């Protein structure tokens, strides 16, 4: 009963994406017996945390009618810097996490200023910060890979936030609880606070919003700061999930998040979108990522599919508008 009510709340696009998720799970389970196992579920979830965090943030610039391409290389770079402080500078893990998130916020501010104040096209401005962050991490940390403390050590306890491993080896993916909580919180921010309201208003009609006396610049920058903040959090999740962070990786991560958001109904031209939709869209991408190898396709097929799905999602909107 409760389920039905929750499902009833999903509107058009979200319900459709939810249907796709169910269909994918059934398809994969049917084709591959190993897919139906608990470790696979954990693996899907492990792979989804950093992407989910990215999408929670990047949905905001997307709704303003912009985009943030810097989150992918950004999160790797922030995780590198955080890890470097912990491993090579012997700082507490807390400081590393703070540095990771703080860097994200800083780059978010930079993006916001470039777009909202200096008026650069968002895709170009963030393409540049994408390259800058890609260089920044290795440049500051000497270009070596970094491993955050392992879960076995005391300093590595932070990894339990995402995946709890009990004494007898039982794995509990509690990260999903955290993700759902964040989805609810950001959904609230987008739909029930000024920040969200003005984000949508800017994407809908920036001039009219300005005429209504809203400090458009501030809220426009804020959208990118939120994106940066969550890229920082995604960096922490990435560091917690994967053993080692390699410099130079991260290019293309942003596409999983942005693609997911657009699949989930966030409009590439701004003004439209929900956090729940974006979250569901990301799950589609993550399922492809993890699921395709189970049905005998190489993992990289996921990239091709993501590209095609992205175009298809936008084309659906274009065709709808024509009618």
């Amino acid at each position, binding site marked *: 009963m409760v389920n039905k009510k929750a499902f009833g709340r999903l509107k058009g696009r979200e319900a459709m994406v939810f249907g796709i998720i169910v269909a994918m799970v059934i398809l994969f389970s049917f084709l591959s017996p190993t897919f139906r196992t608990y470790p696979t579920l954990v693996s899907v979830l492990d792979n989804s945390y950093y992407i989910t965090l990215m999408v929670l943030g990047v949905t905001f610039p997307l709704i303003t009618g912009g*985009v943030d*391409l810097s989150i992918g290389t950004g999160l790797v770079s922030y995780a590198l810097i955080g890890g470097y402080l912990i491993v090579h500078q012997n700082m507490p893990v807390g400081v590393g996490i703070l540095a990771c998130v703080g860097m994200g916020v800083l780059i978010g501010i930079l993006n916001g200023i*470039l777009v909202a104040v*200096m*008026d*650069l*096209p968002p*895709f*170009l*401005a963030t*393409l*540049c*910060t*994408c*390259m*800058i962050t*890609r*260089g*920044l*991490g*290795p*440049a500051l940390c000497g*270009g070596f890979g970094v491993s955050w403390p392992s879960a076995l050590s005391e300093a590595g306890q932070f990894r339990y936030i995402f995946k709890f491993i009990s004494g007898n080896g039982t794995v509990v993916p509690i990260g999903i609880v955290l993700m759902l909580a964040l989805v609810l919180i950001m959904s609230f921010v987008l739909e029930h606070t000024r920040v969200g309201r003005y984000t949508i208003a800017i994407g809908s009609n920036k001039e009219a919003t300005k005429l209504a006396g809203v400090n458009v610049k501030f809220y426009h920058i804020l959208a990118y700061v939120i994106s940066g903040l969550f890229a920082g959090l995604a960096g922490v999740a990435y560091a917690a999930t994967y053993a080692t962070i390699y*410099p130079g990786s991260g*290019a*293309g991560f942003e*596409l999983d998040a*942005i*693609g997911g958001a*657009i699949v989930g109904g966030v409009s*590439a*031209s701004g003004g439209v979108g929900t956090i729940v939709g974006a979250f569901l869209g990301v799950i589609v991408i993550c399922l492809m990522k993890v699921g395709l190898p189970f049905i005998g396709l*190489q993992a*990289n*097929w*996921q*990239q*091709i*599919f*993501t*590209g*095609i799905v*992205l*175009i298809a999602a*936008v*084309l659906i909107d*274009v065709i709808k508008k024509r009618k």
Partner: protein
Amino acid sequence: MEKIKQNALVKKVGFNRIVLVCVMLLMYLAFGGLTGGSFFGLSRITNTLNYAYFLGFLSLGVTFVIATGGIDFSIGPVMFCCALVSGYSMITYGVPMVLSLIMSVLIGVLFGVFNGYLVAYWKVPPFIVSMASMNIAKGIAAVFTKTQSVSWPQSATSDGWYRNFVSMNGFPVGLIVFLAVAVVCAIVLNQTKWGRYILCLGSNEEAVRLSGVNVKKWKMLAYVICGTLVGIASIYYVAAFTTVQPGYGDQYNNEAIAGCVMGGTSMAGGLASISGTVIGVFIISLLQQGILALGFTKEYQYIITGLIVIAAVYSDVSARRRKN
């Protein structure tokens, strides 16, 4: 200053271009000085040129797209996709060298058609198309090569003749070809109907449409030209460096766009300069080599190129704002 600007010769060559050339020369001298003269050595010059060729083709290609007011930042990964797929076909399936080279260009053209069709006929925002193409190119390359890097034949082997495209017995064939292609691009852009319509629709698409011109066709053409040049760029990449790895190529997007925008092509469309792009490409290549020569890693290249694009685009944006 005004006097110099009004000088007939300066006007003819273009003040901005003269400034750019001066910047390039100064940079060259500065790097030479900072490295104690070693930057003037032949190997650095060769490296710079090798870098400038493939980057130059990318930059020329994207100049056409930006002239329409669009953008394509899938060019780097698409270039790698061309080189990987055709190279892997050659090495694994024994496709002859000539066919592989043709295949490289064709793959570029295909991506150009795909991008152009979606942007022009379906009005999908160019940045979305770029993102999708980038992913698809990387995915295809990785799937096709099973994520293995591909090494094209070395000069000594029987198939190594393709490396002569870059240099033959020390003679910089690449430079000649690159400049020749640039001249062709300049002619296409300024002397033919293609270029005329591309520039005009970048400036005011609706007015051109109402003049009875098939704007969709010409807009798509710009992306196809870009794709073709990206295919050629892939040949020059392997001819210079032989080895290609799947999953990379993003950085060249920025460098190519940087060369283009620095050369005076406006991001708003309608205004493009091939000679500016050529100079811009040499500046970027010099910079990349200079950074390495000074002992910095490639990470600094990323950062500095990023900053340069921001600066170049900002000056373009603020110049337009002043005009209005």
